[in-house]
């Protein structure tokens, strides 16, 4: 890198200094000043075109960045100016990223709060045309199907992680590791098609069952579970396993009574995050479980309603007049977000409060 091979001031005509000479630097308030000036320019520009929050922020950011770069280039030299420019760009990238997050949460809360009432949680859609109605049946459906998914995925995922960390050697271990990676990348709709194809063989075409949805979600949840459980089990120090072996404890008891209890907080976090990952999945349930207006709590008998699919159909087929269906759709989306965020928060709390207290 040529810049660093010549750390002296570029093209400085001043006589060579005998000691390290402080290079001219912009004062600390220069950044603030540049952007304050830019804000003023932005208002002027905004008056000429259309002044609103978006154009104001945009103009301020662009003009401020350019001004700071120009001034810095004059006073501090090219290298420092470039550094300032990149800093602004990187900060800008982060700010831009927050726009979707904030606008999304704002929009969903704003539109969803209208129907966040008791009726939404305690009535189904049977006989509802127009106002009223709720997602009681869909919420229960989501809980049942997610519960079944957890019952299938957690043992398989945990045992596979145990195999990979404690027992696996050679080719089978490498194959499973690779396939779990592959499985992580299966598109959710493909998982749905798989479950449909599987159940269509036994129940004929057009089958819609809650259990098929749970199978589809398991295909998505198992690899997530394996990956995170594997990481957590690897964190258990080998010294603890050796301590147990040295006491004459068989390997399987060492795993069950020492390794897993030591990792229990991390495993709890893994399970919670894996649930959060699948609870909002829509596509696989759309093709395996379908939708219904009535409350069906039997995952082995016909269509069920689930919250994400409910939200989808209420938005895309809201009925006449549409506004009531659309309101229900947004409330369903809001409940979904609250569920997912709640699970994420729970995961953090678990890892925070249940981690083994190590004195070291």
């Amino acid at each position, binding site marked *: 890198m040529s810049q660093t091979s010549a750390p002296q001031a570029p093209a400085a005509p001043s006589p060579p200094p005998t000691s390290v000479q402080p290079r001219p630097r912009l004062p600390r308030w220069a950044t603030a000043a540049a952007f304050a000036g830019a804000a003023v320019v932005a208002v002027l520009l905004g008056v000429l075109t259309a002044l609103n929050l978006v154009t104001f922020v945009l103009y301020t950011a662009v003009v401020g960045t350019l001004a700071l770069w120009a001034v810095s280039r004059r006073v501090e030299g090219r290298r420092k100016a470039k550094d300032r420019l990149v800093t602004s760009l990187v900060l800008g990238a982060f700010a831009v990223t927050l726009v979707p997050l904030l606008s999304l949460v704002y929009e969903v809360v704003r539109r969803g709060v209208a129907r966040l009432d008791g009726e939404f949680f305690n009535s189904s859609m049977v006989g509802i045309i127009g106002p009223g109605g709720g997602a009681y049946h869909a919420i229960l459906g989501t809980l049942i199907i997610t519960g079944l998914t957890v019952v299938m995925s957690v043992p398989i995922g945990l045992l596979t992680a145990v195999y990979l960390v404690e027992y696996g050697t050679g080719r089978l271990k490498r194959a499973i590791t690779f396939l779990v990676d592959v499985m992580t990348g299966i598109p959710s709709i*493909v998982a749905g098609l798989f479950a449909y194809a599987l159940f269509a063989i036994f129940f004929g075409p057009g089958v819609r069952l809650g259990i098929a949805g749970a199978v589809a979600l398991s295909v998505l949840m198992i690899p997530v579970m394996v990956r995170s459980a594997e990481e957590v089990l690897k964190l258990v120090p080998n010294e603890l396993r050796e301590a147990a072996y040295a006491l004459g404890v068989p390997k399987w008891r060492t795993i069950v009574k020492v390794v897993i209890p030591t990792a229990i907080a991390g495993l709890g976090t893994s399970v919670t995050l894996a649930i959060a990952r699948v609870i909002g999945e829509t596509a696989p349930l*759309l093709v395996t479980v379908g939708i219904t207006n009535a409350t069906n709590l039997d995952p082995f008998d016909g269509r069920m309603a689930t919250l994400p699919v409910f939200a*989808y159909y209420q938005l895309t087929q809201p009925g006449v007049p549409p506004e009531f269906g659309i309101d229900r759709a947004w409330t369903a989306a809001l409940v979904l977000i609250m569920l997912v965020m709640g699970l994420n928060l729970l995961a953090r709390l678990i890892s925070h409060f249940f981690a083994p207290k190590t004195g070291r």
Partner: protein
Amino acid sequence: MTSTTPSTGSTSRAPVRRLGDRLFAGTSRGAGILIVLILAGVAGFLIVQAAPAFTAPRADVPGGHGVVAYIAPLLFGTALAAVLALLIATPLAVGVALFITQFAPRRLAQGLGYLVDLLAAIPSIVYGFWGIAWLAPRLTPFYAWLADHLGFIPLFAGPASVTGKTMFTVGLVLGVMILPIVSAISREVFLQVPSLHREAALALGATRWEMIRMAVLPYGRSGIIGGAMLGLGRALGETLAVAIVLSASGGIVTFNLISPDNPSTIASNIALQFPESTGIGVNTLVASGLALFVLTLAVNVLARAIVNRRSQFSGAN
């Protein structure tokens, strides 16, 4: 591991293992093998259900020109949307990762990272809601401007969509959805840059940007590429956000990003058509799903290979 005493030993013996150990080891091994079976099952059942679409008379397949003619435009739309998303997300994601790992105050960094991770937690259907209700209407004036001023570029040929339900909007929504994935993996590799490398650069008198260019980016390059590929895999398979946002018509192949007529994607097409399909229509959709499966598989395997190669290198450091 009481097993494997290689035959070199004159005194090698069969291992003694107690019943509990054999049962537990066997069960956990069985779970691992089950995963292999599930994956084989995914491929197998998809092939079984897709096969009738290939053997059926071409006229019976939806669209009337056979299964290949049905899937090809969908494949094009899928790739277009995903690549668009990638082009939008990668620079932003790298910027975000740089900001969190190199620029932000250390005490804030973890919280900021968590904020970006929240983007990954939001269900994809909610992104669809956001895309159609918040983003698309705000983009229509921009599309009109593009069609007016840059219409000579085929990408912006127009006529501009008045609803904003365009391929460009889909690319933006998908870009936001995969940004946290790309950024998380980039962040991970940036954090692994040996501080010796960074300090060496700084000790030479480099500015922060020069240090990043000399030490951080070269070290993290394959991580960025691998992360971007994983993001690409996710974008290819994204279903409902696309199904809700995109105004698609069957059989179109166009690079025009801002018009109301867009090619559909495989995943969203399945979601839209599946509930109403029967017979050979279902088989055709499963066949398109199989194509998507193979495509994402290839992308993911490549991505993993790139990411893993880097982790082998970093082990030597």
